[in-house]
């Protein structure tokens, strides 16, 4: 008897018209997209690991050895010989823009349009600062002679992988900035107020935090190891 009851319940739960995960369709699809995107980034970072471990470790006397990140990333706008300082600034920008995004999602829950606008504006600003910083870093490294096929600091595959992976991440940040700007305009026009919920901000929030999460690993692979 009891078994029969539980089968009916389970059947009802999974037979449509209900959300077994208690997560809306849009949010769960964003999660599934992010899982697949995680595998794309993981594929790139794992190739980085495989290619790096197939090269000799850093060695000043061997121009084909893996470069030392402290030598490669040691400049910022207006300063030199300061290893990892500029990338620390970039990392903090991304963390802060993730925090302002959470605040926008939270204000959305309380249908506070002014609050959402304020925090979304700060999030977009953070994203823009990050993309522009990356553009500066790329320009600087290209001037130093690092391209996908040459690298004055060591193994050329370092340059190829650096531009591929930070480029793919920067592309994600740029898309995020565009989507957030679109959501900012929609919020300003009162679309989500009329709709009765700010779920769009939540979905974009998931995407934006994912971009921050990927940066943790890009940062680990290129700047720390």
């Amino acid at each position, binding site marked *: 008897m009891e078994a029969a009851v539980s089968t009916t319940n389970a059947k009802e739960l999974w037979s449509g018209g209900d959300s077994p*995960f208690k997560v809306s369709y849009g949010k*769960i699809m964003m999660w599934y997209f992010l899982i697949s995107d995680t595998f794309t980034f993981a594929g790139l970072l794992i190739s980085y690991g495989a290619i790096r471990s*197939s090269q*000799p470790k850093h060695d000043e006397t061997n121009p084909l050895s893996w470069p030392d990140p402290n030598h490669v990333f040691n400049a910022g706008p207006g300063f030199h010989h300061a290893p990892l300082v500029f990338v620390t600034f970039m990392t903090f920008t991304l963390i802060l823009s*993730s925090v302002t995004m*959470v605040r926008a999602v*939270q204000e959305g829950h309380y249908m506070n349009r002014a609050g959402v606008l304020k925090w979304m504006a700060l999030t977009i600003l953070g994203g823009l600062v990050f993309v522009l910083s990356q553009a500066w870093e790329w320009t600087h490294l290209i001037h130093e002679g690092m391209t996908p096929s040459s690298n004055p600091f060591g193994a050329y595959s370092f340059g190829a992988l650096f531009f591929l992976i930070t480029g793919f991440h920067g592309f994600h940040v740029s898309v995020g900035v565009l989507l957030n700007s679109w959501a900012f305009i929609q919020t300003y026009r009162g679309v989500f107020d009329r709709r009765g919920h700010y779920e769009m901000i939540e979905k974009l929030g998931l995407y934006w935090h994912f971009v921050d999460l990927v940066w943790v690993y890009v940062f680990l692979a290129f700047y*720390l190891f």
Partner: protein
Amino acid sequence: MSTLSREESKKRVWRVCGILALVTIVEIAAALIHYNYMEDSPKTFLNILFIILSAGKAYYIMSEFMHLKYELKPMVISVLAPFLFLIWGVIAFLWEGKYWLSMKQFWDVLN
């Protein structure tokens, strides 16, 4: 949605922000101390520390910012389970890379 009050969830966000910032500072400090004072010593221990700290950052971003901690358990499992494949991926391909290096050294084709 969590059962936290508006003020509580606000405070929690800034606390997580503080944790992420602190962990990043610790990572950078450790990397720079190694670079400036002990460049000749192996980096193995430091790399293990970086992996643990990055996993900690990933935990806070997913659980608090992406709100995963407050979702139902089956949802959490269906999101996290696929990542188990990545553990195999990392080990297998780093192993492969090392083998590749030893082959290149054996046939002396590095330069």
